[in-house]
């Protein structure tokens, strides 16, 4: 019965496909590459429409220097001839992610930029996404998903109690995980060929696991990192990725360049705003871990300020004491952002240190006379507002 079902389904799928299935011989990153098959043309048009909308979206960070830097790293990683087929869009979203559409639109979230440590790690991420583009993964997945859907449709009509659909759905997701692993390894090859440190690729996933642990701990949840992926997972687990990337990096994985200074210079103007977005996630454990990671023993004013905000947001009495200390340390270390005095003042006021708190809030209003919360702060000082 099952064999007959599959034969019928494949016949149906073949009838449905119709037009020519041959792909254009040129690589998709070539100059003015034009897709030729019905499926690829359709997917490209959909992606083009999505790109028109993203291009104009207020969520995109359009800073020329930041974008030029990302393009430079991609070009060094995958090669000058290949990278020209890609447009990179930096999207303001405080989570670790990046994506690629079949037409060469690459999206990198600011949360990923905040979590990467050096240029080699950035190159690994960009190379992974480029791998999806080069291997036409979306197209392959679309076609396989369609064939699997066709077989499931026939099966559910012909043999409603068959377990074949469940196996096929599992197959579909394991195909997608295989694509991710393939893109990971392509990214690693680009990384090594460009002279970056190959171990950078696995480090990303090791730190991400540690951050997930910290998040779970902060939320009093239990977390276990598994090697095998779940039924519906479309990516391999972080543990699996870290492991195979470390193995593939080989014995001399530490050799090569990580261009840490260039990366930090490019990110310096952005880190404060990326951090401000991060602590709005209401993820105390994860944010605290991330701040510690970023500091690496050297607490800079922007990190101290963010840590103060994080503790003040949680707001237990002991957190307010810690927050006031962090704000004071930030100010002592040369922080000039007025919100440090606001945070200090509010923390002190709630910690029963009213005189010092009012003084700090006064400094805040002197430094930021146009602040949108001026009236509220003035009321707290006792200088007006509704009593």
């Amino acid at each position, binding site marked *: 019965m099952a064999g007959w079902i599959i034969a019928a*389904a494949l016949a*149906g*799928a073949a*009838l*449905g496909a*119709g037009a020519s299935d041959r792909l254009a011989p040129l690589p998709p990153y070539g100059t003015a590459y034009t897709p030729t098959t*019905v*499926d690829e*043309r*359709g*997917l*490209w*048009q*959909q992606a083009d429409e999505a790109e*028109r*909308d993203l*291009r*104009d*979206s*207020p969520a995109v960070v359009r800073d020329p220097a930041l974008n030029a830097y990302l393009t430079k790293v991609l070009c060094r990683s995958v090669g000058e001839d290949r990278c020209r087929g890609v447009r990179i869009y930096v999207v303001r979203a405080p989570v670790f*992610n*990046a*994506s*690629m559409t079949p037409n060469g639109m690459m999206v990198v979230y600011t949360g990923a930029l905040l979590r990467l440590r050096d240029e080699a790690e950035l190159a690994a991420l960009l190379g992974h*996404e480029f791998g*999806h583009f080069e291997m036409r*993964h*979306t197209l392959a*997945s*679309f076609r396989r*998903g*369609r064939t*699997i*859907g*066709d*077989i*499931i*449709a*026939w099966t*559910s*009509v*012909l043999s409603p109690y068959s377990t074949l*659909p469940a196996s096929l*759905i599992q197959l*579909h*997701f394991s195909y*997608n995980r295989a694509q991710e692993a393939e893109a990971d390894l392509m990214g690693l090859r680009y990384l090594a060929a460009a002279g970056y440190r190959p171990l950078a690729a696995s480090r990303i996933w090791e730190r991400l696991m540690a951050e997930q642990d910290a998040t779970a701990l902060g939320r009093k949840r239990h977390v276990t990192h598994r090697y095998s992926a779940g039924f519906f997972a*479309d*990516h391999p687990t972080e543990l699996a990725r870290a492991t195979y990337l470390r193995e593939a990096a080989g014995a001399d994985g530490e050799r090569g360049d990580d261009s840490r200074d260039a990366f930090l210079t490019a990110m310096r103007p952005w880190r404060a705003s990326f951090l401000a977005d991060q602590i709005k996630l209401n993820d105390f454990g994860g944010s605290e871990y991330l701040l510690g990671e970023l500091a690496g023993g050297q607490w800079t004013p922007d990190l101290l300020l963010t840590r103060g905000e994080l503790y003040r947001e949680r707001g237990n009495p002991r957190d307010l004491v810690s927050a006031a200390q962090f704000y004071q340390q930030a100010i002592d270390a040369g922080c000039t952002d007025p919100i440090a005095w606001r945070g200090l003042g509010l923390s002190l006021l709630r910690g029963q240190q009213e005189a010092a708190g009012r003084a700090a809030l006064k400094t805040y209003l002197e430094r930021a006379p146009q602040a949108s919360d001026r009236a509220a702060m003035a009321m707290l000082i006792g200088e007006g507002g509704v009593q």
Partner: protein
Amino acid sequence: MRRGWGALACAAALTLVAAPLAAQEKTGNKPGFTLAPGTATIVLMRPEIAVGAQSTGGSYEPNADWTDQARENLGRALAEAQGKLGNRVVTHVEPVGQGAATAHEYRALFTALADSVITYQFFPGNRLPTKKRGDSFLWSIGSEVAKLPGVQGADYALFVTTEDHYGSTGRKLLQVFAAGVAGIGVSAGVHKGYAGLIDLKTGDLVWLNADLAMGGDVRTPEGAAKRVSQLLEGFPGKPVEAPVAPAAPTKTAAR
């Protein structure tokens, strides 16, 4: 990162099928709204058009050629229909830069609004408590829409959306087989569209026409003309008889 669910979700949901749409209403008007012919200027926003095939399993297969044909045919049919709507209709010129972002946001907002009207007003059994009275067709996208670049001087904005999934041969075979042998209903093809009119002074939705089972093959000029006439059925201020003004030669905006 990336896609994947659609095809399988459709296939899984194929456990079938097609809730009867019979009880659905198709048109709504803001209470008390009238539009006299020859009194207003209407801006036609760039239509949203997607045309493709429906695979045997039910997933959407985008087709670039069909979408291009539909855009051209519907553009021409809309231009012809513009002269017959009783008021002056001009095509929106898409702004660039910041204005384009705003235009995109309003297009998305209109789509969300129209979807809400279809779900919570046009299905009488599913009405929100505030939409149960006869005169409660009150929906708005906000008066800020007046600041949208390219609509200054106009009174109304007309939004048009169509989506077509033509059933593939495999899907039709499955449909016939499922009905004949297994006695299960499987739908083939999705043809939905809506058109709505927004008052640019208040942002209120004054007219919406939505149909989840439209006619007319948008890939052909004749079919597109039929589709446009269905989309604009019940358009306010439309003279009953022949056109009052000759059709102005207009082109749909290329983005």
